[in-house]
């Protein structure tokens, strides 16, 4: 009996040790659900309901719809909420398709910050900066009244409303993108051709100019270098007088990543992260 108790205790201890590691490993491998409420602002029922809605939308439109709440994004040590969102997306979320299409809605409760991080080619197409502004309008009124559940619900409705036309318009968009890329490729090829031609012409002009100069060797001299005595010059005054010091400061420009509530947008075919962040 004592042996069974001891074995049971050992098993419990092992489970206690192994499970968090597994959970952590699972998280690290990208197994977060669609709705993760680390800030604890939703009841489990509310979270589950939102999880079901978000998962349904994600599957239906093949575009990950994620909500993550956190007590304070600064605990991630990434400087800005946008960088924090990118970290979460890249490490714990997959998105859909080859480019990891999806949108992450990160809410940080400490200073009431949010970030909408669109990712992937389709994700950026569907949720460009204008669409992200619309999403902000969907949850904003609820969040201002601390009505988190209804805010998230309104957000998910707005997301689906956007995804319907986005899915329909995406092939045409891709086609236009291809055309655009083809035109760009043509322009680049043309520029390469013209550049090569110009380099060839300039090289030939230089070389032939050198050959032509060899044909004219009778030139008047304007110097007398060869007749300077070996001991020259005899320096008599060598003065270096300090006048003043000037100081210029150049601020290193950081690549803008935060759109600050509606600024950022994705370019055609862009499949990285694009953000809209702000406060509620």
């Amino acid at each position: 009996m004592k042996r069974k108790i001891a074995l049971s205790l050992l098993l419990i201890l092992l489970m206690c040790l192994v499970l968090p590691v597994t959970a952590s490993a699972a998280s690290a491998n990208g197994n977060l659900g669609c709705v993760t409420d680390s800030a604890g602002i939703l009841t489990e029922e509310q979270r589950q309901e939102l999880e079901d809605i978000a998962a349904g939308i994600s599957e239906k439109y093949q575009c990950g719809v994620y909500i993550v709440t956190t007590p304070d994004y600064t605990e991630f040590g990434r400087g800005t909420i946008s960088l924090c969102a990118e970290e979460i997306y890249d490490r714990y979320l997959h998105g859909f398709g080859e480019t990891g299409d999806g949108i992450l809605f990160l809410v940080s409760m400490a200073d009431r910050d949010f970030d909408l991080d669109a990712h992937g080619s389709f994700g950026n197409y569907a949720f460009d900066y204008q669409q992200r502004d619309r999403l902000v309008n969907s949850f904003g009124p609820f969040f201002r009244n601390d009505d988190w559940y209804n805010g998230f619900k309104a957000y998910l409705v707005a997301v689906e409303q956007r995804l319907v036309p986005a899915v329909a318009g995406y092939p045409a968009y891709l086609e236009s993108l291809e055309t655009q890329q083809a035109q760009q490729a043509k322009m680049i090829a043309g520029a390469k051709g013209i550049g090569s031609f110009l380099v060839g012409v300039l090289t030939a002009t230089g070389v032939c100019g050198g050959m032509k100069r060899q044909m004219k060797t009778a030139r008047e001299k304007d110097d007398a270098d060869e007749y300077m005595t070996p001991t020259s010059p005899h320096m008599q005054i060598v003065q270096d007088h300090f006048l003043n010091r000037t100081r210029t400061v150049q601020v290193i420009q950081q690549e803008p990543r935060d759109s600050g509530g509606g600024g950022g947008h994705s370019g055609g075919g862009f499949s990285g992260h694009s953000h809209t962040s702000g406060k509620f």
Partner: protein
Amino acid sequence: MPEQITNFQCPSCTGPLHFDGSIGKLRCDYCGSTFTVQEIEALYGDKIEDAQTAAAQAAESAQQSPPEQDWNWNAVSDDWGEAGIDMRAYTCPSCGAELICDATTVATQCPYCGNPTVVPSQFDGHLKPDYILPFKLDKVAAVKALKEFYRDKKLLPREFASNNQIEKIQGVYVPFWLFNGTAEVDMSFRASRSMTHREGDRIITETDHFQLRRAGNVDFERIPVDGSRRMPDAHMDAIEPFDYSELKPFSPGYLPGFLANKYDVDKEECAARADERAAHTAEEVIEATAMSSGYATCSPMGKSIRLHRGEVNYALMPVWMLSTRWKDQSFLFAMNGQTGKLIGDLPVSKERYWSWFARIAIPVAGALAAVLYFFV
């Protein structure tokens, strides 16, 4: 009235003597005997003096004695007009022919008997050169050098090199003025030196500004300027430099076999060119001392150049002049008779120019395009 001239004849066979640069001696054209310049000088020293005296007496008697009146010479004028001012008549001591030469001619060759002749009176007093640089290279070397010169000239018309014949080749002792002097240069500059470091997200550049002054003297020895109007300055400048270590005190013994002219541009006129060259080099040299002082930027702000002219020497330098004709155009080449440096302007074949242009431009453009298409 013809003036007296001297021709150096072989003491052994009385054949004409030529200075042979390859051996540095005078050689007899007929028997092949060779003599040093000093030997010939010793032998002909009296003759040269006699010729100079005779020239002076001839000039005097021409003024004193009235012309004979046996014949009516009215229709025949010895007035050469303005052209006569620059002409001189000499009698060849070998064949008695009358030679009409330029007033500046010092040494030439009789067109009738071919004997090299020297006009000693042209070296009187201040006209006498201080130095002479003897020819080291002969006519054969000059012709060879010209052929070499044509080689590797990718834009030269093919027919020019193949059909072109040397129209005239002449070894000439060209009169040069050699200027010594010092250039006193005083220059000021603005210079700066920068240091850059990073403080957080800022790049800080600190620049120290300086005012520099550099002053010094630059000495020049024997800047050559040709004193002959007939010699193109560009050709004479381009065959420089001469090796002055081989300069010899002047002696007419080096002249036989070559054409020689006395100067017709005086030293005052030539000094301007020497000054210009000296000032330019002196400025560059002093500027270089500032530029090499370790500053990132350095630009001249002001300068003062004073030239102190020193001794001027008069020397005869050896030059081979070669002229060719092609498609009714004359091409003149000059070769330094001491160093063999040959210069001259050549015609450019348009066909060959564009052919080379295409041969360079097309592969370069093609290769670059291929690299850009496949690797970029």
